[in-house]
């Protein structure tokens, strides 16, 4: 098999319009498929972002109890109900910890972030993050390793206040506010949701809001003073290997509850959350779009190449009569296609690079994943060569006698 460039370049010059179109369509194709894959990858990546919790042993309990009404008695009733729910879960076999959190990564309802300020800071550093109200069971249940300080002192029932007094920050929030985790302990911060709270510790990052929310890992765990509303979210930690037993036992424990409650007990599994489904769904959806575009290019290339081969039947016959082997004919068409495809796909990669700054503005934190662009390039390269190979193999079967038919 010989790859001769001269005849190929001559053939390209013979139909310049067609080949310019091939290059342009491949360029547009690579750019579009790259953008679809990069965008889809961003959705998939964000949607599958980890909660950083040890989910394997956690159980989620989402409860809705109609508000007990207005006034101190109703507030007291809601507090008693929450304490009772916690105690019932804690008493279940194989439960090693239980905590109430005002929100967690499974909660797909929109929420408004908190703007934190440092008390007494000369320039009032400010950072945006999320307030999560919780309680004494937090340390045992979430088991987040401390990077500085430690858990708050236990609050006795008589000390329950309407507002939190202590907080533990995640590393992201501590760094945003103080530049370093050690510097955070002992300082006081406040947000628009609560007054000043003392920071007693800093833990490893944990994602407590859906990852499509900005800075979902910047969290202040607040101890006490949670708003009294209808939704209660408990997280329970089971002994390793006993999670399913805890789920069954918790369902049974709440089955006899009052007539107007809604209780959903399930494994704490962020892979079954809405954000995970949306992220994975969009990733798959946009990838299918990219695949369909690749198919379209394949069909277009196949139709055109078939036609060009048919047009050149006599030329092929002449080349065969002059001694060209079947492999030479195939090589001739493949080289012709490879030249145009390479030019088009490389231009397309340039287009993807050009689009990237725009994507950075739309998809915050998107990474230019070279493999996605290479995949787009490879798909179209292979599609284009495949589209050439089939008619080229057919052309190679043209007998030398065809050259003399019109004589």
């Amino acid at each position: 098999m010989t790859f001769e460039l001269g005849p190929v370049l001559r053939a390209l010059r013979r139909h310049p319009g067609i080949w310019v179109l091939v290059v342009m369509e491949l360029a547009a194709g690579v750019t579009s498929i790259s953008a679809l894959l990069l965008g889809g990858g961003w959705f998939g990546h964000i949607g599958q972002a980890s909660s950083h919790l040890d989910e394997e042993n956690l159980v989620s309990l989402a409860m809705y109890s109609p508000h007990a009404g207005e006034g101190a008695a109703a507030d007291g009733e809601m507090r008693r109900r929450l304490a009772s729910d916690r105690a019932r879960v804690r008493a279940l076999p194989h439960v090693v910890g239980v905590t109430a959190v005002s929100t967690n990564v499974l909660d797909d309802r929109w929420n408004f972030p908190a703007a934190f300020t440092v008390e007494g800071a000369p320039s009032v550093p400010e950072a945006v993050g999320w307030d999560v109200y919780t309680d004494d069971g937090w340390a045992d249940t979430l088991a987040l390793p401390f990077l500085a300080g430690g858990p708050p002192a236990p609050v006795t029932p008589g000390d329950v206040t309407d507002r939190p007094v202590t907080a533990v920050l995640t590393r992201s929030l501590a760094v945003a506010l103080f530049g370093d985790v050690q510097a955070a302990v002992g300082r006081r911060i406040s947000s628009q949701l609560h007054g000043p709270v003392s920071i007693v510790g800093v833990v490893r990052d944990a994602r407590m809001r859906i990852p499509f929310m900005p800075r979902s890992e910047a969290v202040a765990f607040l101890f006490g003073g949670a708003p009294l509303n209808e939704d209660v979210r408990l997280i329970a930690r089971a002994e390793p290997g006993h999670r399913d037993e805890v789920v069954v036992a918790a369902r049974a424990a709440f089955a006899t509850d009052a007539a107007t409650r809604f209780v959903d007990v399930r494994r704490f599994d962020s892979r079954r959350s809405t954000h995970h489904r949306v992220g994975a769904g969009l990733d798959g959806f946009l990838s299918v779009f990219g695949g369909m575009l690749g198919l379209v290019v394949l069909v277009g290339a196949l139709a055109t190449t078939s036609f060009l081969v048919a047009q050149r039947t006599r030329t092929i016959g002449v080349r065969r009569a002059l001694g060209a082997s079947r492999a030479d004919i195939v090589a001739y068409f493949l080289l012709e296609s490879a030249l145009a495809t390479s030019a088009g796909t490389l231009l397309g990669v340039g287009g993807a690079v050009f689009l990237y700054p725009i994507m950075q503005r739309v998809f915050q934190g998107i990474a230019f994943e070279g493999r996605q662009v290479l995949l787009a390039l490879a798909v179209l390269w292979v599609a284009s060569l495949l589209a050439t190979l089939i008619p080229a193999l057919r052309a190679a079967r043209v007998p030398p006698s065809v050259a003399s038919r019109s004589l």
Partner: protein
Amino acid sequence: MLLRLLPYHLRLAARSLRRDPGLSAAIVLVMAVVAGLFCTCVMHYLRTHGPPPPVSSDLHHVEIQHTWSSVRGALEGTSAETNVLALRMRISYPTYRALAGSGIPARQTATFRARLLVQPPDGPPARVLPADVDPQGCASRPRNARFVNADFFSLFTVPLRYGAPWTGQDEARGEPVVVLSKVLNEELFDGANSVGRTVLINGRPHRVAGVCAHEQPFVPEWDRAVTGSSQDLLYLPFPEHQRLAAYPEMPIHMAPAGPSYRDLLDSDDVLFLTYWIELTTPAQRQAYARYLAETLGARGVPYVLRDLAQLRQSLRQPHGAISFFLFVTSLIMVAGGLITARLLLAKGMARRDELGIFRALGAPRGSLFARQLLEALLLSVAAGVASLAVSWPAAAAYNHAVADTDIPLALSGAAFAITFAATVAVGVVCAIFPAWRAADRAPTIAGRGAR
């Protein structure tokens, strides 16, 4: 001349389509697929940025201006950017009472959303979800409920399929009534006329007064901040929120408030509701502006009174990923157009002998050019129609696999019209070069094959 010969050229163009059925089919397939992809994005784009549903044009809204640059800065450009709209649209309960206390005889409504436990009339009263039951499939569960005043339905043109909204008198008497959304009525009553039936809301019986005719608009004018989330499933009289002690969805705290429900209602620093008033005459507008100056202005509260047109201008939905993907699918349309151009060029080359004969028989270049364009037009029209075969399943796949909201992505007439027009335009524009090449045949070429 060209118009007179149009039927003749159309006939010839249609005949030439049959001459190269493979190439014609490839062109239709290519254009149909890219148009289908484009249409799917147009559907998405239109439901966020399309023309808003008709509402009273005399509606007015008061924005309380908060300077909260850090949060706004953090939210802008993210998928949570609609929260900025919430910050601008929502007001506190005391502010609502001030705005609603003008005494001007005008239609008005306050509104906010909460989650309430809805139980069907014959459903199980208590619910602990059994294993493997998705909460979404459970009839008795918390739902999005919206508290509104009686004028809400006429101000925002929310048509009812069955029954009628409650009246101001019902509201004043504290009648336990409810208007169900189309979706909830289908779920609880199989879509039948449920007016007069009873549903339990947070354990209290409520009589169904009406049922909405349509799904909620994707961008609900009354509360743009909930765009993209699940729709409102039931509407309750505004004063009912106190009886149910309904905690609002997404309250925005500007300063700490106590944990109880009363703390929430008393705080001037917790924003959670939206208030609208219809001011139909200049006199009403002046009177209301004076009233605001005397109440909010006197307290030094920065505010802006806007009519609906100004509000829409000011609170535009942010352009995010969907605008970008619309651009990408437009690029895909261009790629499809280039493929079509290539195929048309090939088609023209395949028929150059035939075209040469036409030229030899006296056909002017313009006539051949027009015929090629007509052929492309016919192919584009076919592709535009065939794009439905892609966009429909794509919308269904999106609703199944992504389902980011319970308002389904649906093919609208506008989306199809835009796609059809774009397909035809791209098809015809991309046919110009091949048509020009085809019309450029010399008459002598016709004889070459005969030699």
